[in-house]
């Protein structure tokens, strides 16, 4: 009896979860049905690979973009997420999965472009590209705009806790101020961390000059004594809980933190800051390129782009969507700053392999205070350990034989 009850309960629960999704009524009158429904009934699946928490997904009465797309087009969306560009790159590089749409950041787009990992887009299939703000067309990372359609953009700002700082926070110099010793957080990813030091030094954040990078590394080493912790996502927990006074992070995420902790403020450093664009691309080997282009086009429908941007709090490059946003968001100087405020902002581009290696090396050096090392130490250690291991086992065996 008990079993039966739980079975019925489980069935009811499953049904109640499934029903609203099917019964939801979307209004498709604004959409070009002839275009969107050409794959209907063909059982096409689309593998979409995007950042975590980076699409409006139906929670808290928001629009469920993927289910809406499925209903409109009859294409099934398999949506998966990644948490860093590098994780996404490693996964694509391993070739274990095929994706139809990925949304990497600027420098990763150019890296994948240079390595021939991206498919050229057919912009006839993406009519909504006309909504993209001119500022974001033909960007540095994709100069002829053949491979990518911008999805969101944003900046890195210096987040601070009003109640925990003395005086005004104006720029990156505050990240080297001894008065915040043990009270500041720092990026745990080398590219973003180096960018801050390079801005302070007044160099390009895409510098390939080893001398400049070493100079930046010295600066970061000096800063290390004052840094409380190097973090990425843990920053939410720490800034919301008044654990630190200062932390550089992405502007969009600042708004999420501010909802929890009202004492948080942000400043866009005058020395310049990193401006980034996340753009939709189609990787080589995508099974359904045309359907993928349709998905990218759908993301740029004004209504959809507006819903997404309201959900993720970043800034949109889509002018039609921007017009649909509430006035206080549209005129927010932090989210949509004036052109002159962006004068010193720089975008990441892809670095050469040597520079990437050097960057990782310097980063490890910064975090672990390296001493000099001997070239032969490690191979000798490996060999020695193997020999000892074999010897010990052999000796045990011999001893055992003797006893028997």
């Amino acid at each position, binding site marked *: 009896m008990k079993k039966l009850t739980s079975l019925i309960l489980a069935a009811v629960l499953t049904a109640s979860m499934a029903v609203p999704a099917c019964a939801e009524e979307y209004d498709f009158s604004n959409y070009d049905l002839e275009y969107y429904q050409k794959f209907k009934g063909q059982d096409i699946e689309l593998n979409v690979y995007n950042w975590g928490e980076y699409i409006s997904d139906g929670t808290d009465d928001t629009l469920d973009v993927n289910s809406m797309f499925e209903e409109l087009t009859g294409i099934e969306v398999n949506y998966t997420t990644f948490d*860093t560009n*590098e*994780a996404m*790159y*490693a996964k694509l*590089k391993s070739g274990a999965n095929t994706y139809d749409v990925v949304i990497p950041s600027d420098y990763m787009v150019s890296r994948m472009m240079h390595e021939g990992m991206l498919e050229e887009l057919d912009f006839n299939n993406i009519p909504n590209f006309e909504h993209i703000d001119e500022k974001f067309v033909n960007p540095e990372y994709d100069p002829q705009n053949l491979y990518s359609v911008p999805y969101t953009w944003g900046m890195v700002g210096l987040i601070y806790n009003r109640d925990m700082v003395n005086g005004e926070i104006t720029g990156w110099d505050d990240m080297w101020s001894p008065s915040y010793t*043990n009270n500041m957080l*720092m990026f*745990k990813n*080398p*590219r973003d961390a180096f960018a801050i030091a390079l801005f302070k030094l007044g160099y390009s954040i895409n510098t390939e000059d080893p001398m400049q990078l070493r100079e930046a590394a010295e600066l970061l080493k000096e800063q*290390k004594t004052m*840094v*409380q*912790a*190097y*973090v990425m996502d*843990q920053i939410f*927990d*720490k800034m919301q*809980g*008044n*654990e630190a006074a200062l932390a550089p992070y992405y502007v969009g995420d600042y708004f999420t933190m501010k909802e929890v902790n009202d004492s948080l403020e942000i400043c866009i450093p005058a020395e310049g800051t990193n401006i980034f664009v996340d753009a939709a691309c189609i990787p080589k080997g995508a099974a359904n390129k045309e359907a993928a282009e349709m998905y990218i086009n759908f993301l740029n429908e004004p209504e959809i782009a507006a819903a997404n941007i309201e959900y993720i709090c970043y800034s949109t490059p889509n002018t039609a969507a921007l017009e649909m946003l509430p006035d206080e968001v549209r005129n927010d100087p932090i989210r949509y700053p004036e052109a002159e405020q962006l004068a010193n902002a720089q975008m990441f581009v892809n*670095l050469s*392999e040597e520079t*990437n*290696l050097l*960057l*990782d*090396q310097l*980063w*490890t050096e910064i*975090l*672990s*205070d*390296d*001493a000099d*090392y*001997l*070239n*032969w*130490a*490690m*191979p000798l*250690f*490996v060999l020695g*350990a*193997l020999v*000892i*291991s*074999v010897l*010990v*086992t052999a000796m*045990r*065996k011999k001893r*055992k034989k003797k006893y028997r």
Partner: protein
Amino acid sequence: MKMKYAAYPYIIWLIVFMAIPMGLIIYFALTDASGAFTIANIAQTGRYMPVLIRSIWLATISTAVCLVLAYPLSYMLSRMQGLTSRTLLTLVMLPMWMNFLLRTYAWMTLLEKNGIINQILGVFGIEPLTMINTQGAVIMGMVYNYIPFMILPLHSVMVKIGKDVIEAAQDLGASPASVFSQVILPLSMPGVRTGITMVFVPAVSTFVISQMLGGGTNQLIGDIIELQFLGNAYNPSLGSAISMVLMVLVLLCMSLTGFFDDDDVEDRLI
């Protein structure tokens, strides 16, 4: 010996999920990007020697702490009967039912400057302590996460030590100290060895704990391996080389603790 057909699935499983990945790691570690043989990767890992030493050091300390804490507890558990022993054993395993990441995240909230522990101390007028982002916090995290792996093997060996064996020793005039040193300790050695291996091996290669509780500055060898795959430069060769060094280290640890042959003590138990 003829192999039974029933063993084939396991053999295939072993080959696909153990032998092939292992072979790939060794292949990547010993070749450069073009596929030519080189030991340059392993030579380069020498750069991370200080990190490796720190990893071994922290893992050794946590293994020792685990052993000291777990040994008396396991002995007590093994002398208990029925429901009490089962309940306590379940309590030991209970935290393992929760995700490893979540457990470590919870420690972050506990140890922080405005965390729960400091808030409680504040009630008694004690100044907030700096606990998070230190090596102590990393060791704490390791001990907490891996202590069940010490208790369980110790317990399973100790329950096999019969009451009669101990009573016999006492009847023959052994003092409590010599009962422990000459009967209980030698008989529990297989459990100690397994426990040490099972705590040391994951502790030396962990990276989540050091990132969450160590503040990013207490880098361990696991962090360095992660950096090779998910850092700026995608460098599977160097990553594999460091993994190989780690595997050799584990092998060394296992042969030193006699993981490969502890059946001699097993004989005495039966």
